């Protein structure tokens, strides 16, 4: 069946919190002392969240509480005339001790120092690149913040400035770390580590980052290598905190190469030089058919997770991938790597059912 057309569904079932949320707002609207209800609600909501089951959703302008014991955090404001804390975004309430904040359901990525991000070059300037990381502003990557070929410690020269486009050009994808933030929220990136740099040998997929539960979340590991099924060999996965995901054929990391060769041969500088040669390459290695299939399958898992409102992190993705491989093996006919529509829902159900 090449095409499926379905009628719209009333409510997406994945987060059954809709009932709770509407209850909250109903009580707010109907009763004058709704705040008192709510006060009781907050700990409830957070205790529920511990079970990872439900959320209470507030909308902009909705009074969260007028009890002065609470402090306002992100996503809230205090109206000038009263002391009530009002939500300024649509999202879920988070309570940290006495601090109330609202995490938006959908938001652009807000960079934080130390975040590992995947970005795309959109503009090349005289001494820096402008990088799209899915935030409200373009991040910048100064020429001084990258590793130059021919040894990490090489001094930046004028020639480098003139040939800035040979390192990164418009459209290039890179993995980098947020080094610094400006007061206006703009981020400065750096790639001064061998694990950062230009991306190749794989596919890119952008999902919403940092949303209310779905998308990529900050976690212990954003980058890992996993063994793929069907003899496809190891794959590298980069989950940018900003929701940009890169899935590629595993390439021996430069660090590993160095460690390997260091013991065997001589001076380190030479090695680093030889290692850094591929740093700015835009030529793909030879990639096997099986590897390509598994890369597509993982990409399918990522989109299926997001479409069904699940978070994307290492645990979910690895479990999801194994589930997907299993699903494909159980299914009749040739191995199907497609994970959209119903198959995606099946996958999500299998994952949440555990």
């Amino acid at each position: 069946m090449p095409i499926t057309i379905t009628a719209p569904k009333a409510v997406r079932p994945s987060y059954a919190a809709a009932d709770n949320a509407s209850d909250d707002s109903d009580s707010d609207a109907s009763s004058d002392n709704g705040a008192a209800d709510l006060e009781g609600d907050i700990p409830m909501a957070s205790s529920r969240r511990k079970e990872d089951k439900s959320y209470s959703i507030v909308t902009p302008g909705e009074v969260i509480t007028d009890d002065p014991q609470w402090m306002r955090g992100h996503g809230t404001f205090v109206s000038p005339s009263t002391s009530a804390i009002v939500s300024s975004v649509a999202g879920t309430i988070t309570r940290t001790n006495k601090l109330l904040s609202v995490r938006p359901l959908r938001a652009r990525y807000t960079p934080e120092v130390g975040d590992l991000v995947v970005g795309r070059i959109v503009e090349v300037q005289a001494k820096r690149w402008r990088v799209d990381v899915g935030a409200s502003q373009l991040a910048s990557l100064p020429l001084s913040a990258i590793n130059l070929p021919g040894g990490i410690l090489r001094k930046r020269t004028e020639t480098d400035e003139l040939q800035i486009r040979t390192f990164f050009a418009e459209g290039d994808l890179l993995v980098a770390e947020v080094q610094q933030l400006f007061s206006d929220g703009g981020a400065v990136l750096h790639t001064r580590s061998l694990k950062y740099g230009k991306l190749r040998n794989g596919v890119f997929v952008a999902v919403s980052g940092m949303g209310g539960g779905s998308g990529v979340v900050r976690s212990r590991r954003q980058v890992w290598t996993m063994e793929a099924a069907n003899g496809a060999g190891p794959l590298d996965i980069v989950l940018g905190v900003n929701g940009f995901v890169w899935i590629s054929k595993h390439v021996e990391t430069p660090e590993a190469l160095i460690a390997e060769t260091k013991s065997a041969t001589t001076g380190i500088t030479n090695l680093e030089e030889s290692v850094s040669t591929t740093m700015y390459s835009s030529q793909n290695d030879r990639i096997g058919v099986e590897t390509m299939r598994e890369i597509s399958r993982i990409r399918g898992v990522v989109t299926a997770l997001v479409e069904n409102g699940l978070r994307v992190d290492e645990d979910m993705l690895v479990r999801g991938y194994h589930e997907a491989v299993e699903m494909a093996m159980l299914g009749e006919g040739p191995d199907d790597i497609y994970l959209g529509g119903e198959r995606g829902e099946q996958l999500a159900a299998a994952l949440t059912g555990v």
Partner: protein
Amino acid sequence: MADRRRVNGPVGATIPPVFEDEDVQVQATQRTTRSRAPNGIRKMYLKTGVTPSASGSAYLEIETSGKDGVSGLKLSCTVHGPRSLPRLSPFSPHIILSTHVKFAPFATKQRRGYLRDPSERDLGTHLEAALRGAIIADRWPKSGVDIIISIIEGDQGRETSGAQGDDTWDMMNALSGCITVASAALADAGIDCVDTVAGGVAALVRGSGENDTARIVIDPIPSEHERIEAACCIAYLPARDEITNLWFKGDMPDHDMGIYSELVQQGIQASKLANRVLVESLGETVK
């Protein structure tokens, strides 16, 4: 779509006069019939370098069908560039191609405005697709080229009525002329191309007789045929045997795919013939 820059007269308020004297009655009933062979195109005149101030230019005229009051197609094309992009435009590793096709207000029976109407923009998009396949865009980074075509005279008879639905077929003829003339102007401007692209039209026509079977002709003149069932306009690169633009319109049952292929083949044939003129004309400019 309103002209925001000047005050115009009422749009579309004029209706072209309908003459009802006897002569026309006679002419209207006696359609001129096609005297050319089905696989022959009209004679055309092509000359490059007609506009000295432009980087490249060409002029194309296609023979009239020999009937009074019917003019052939007359096209003029100027190419400006390669030239630098506007200051604030982003970096481009390729040449940026922009095409403008404009009918002169007096080119067709129904007067056209000064602004490009949707059909002219549509032609421009077709032309862009046809040319983009032909040029080698990465030879000219950070530059742009404007290709401007004025259709000075459309290929329309005075007494063919607008409501006949011939419009699209006229557009196809115009497009094929645009492709050929733009290709000549590009070569004149010295912009790298993989080949000389030329346009050609083929149509499936049906005569007026009851039991006339449909036949395929190339370079059709809509007024010469009782009914055009389908037509296609092809932009073709002869040296590479590749099509850069294909525009087919008509109504063709799925079991007539053979006819469709034949139509495309004939379109290619028409394009090859036009290309011969193009090559000849380019050769002459050098002497």
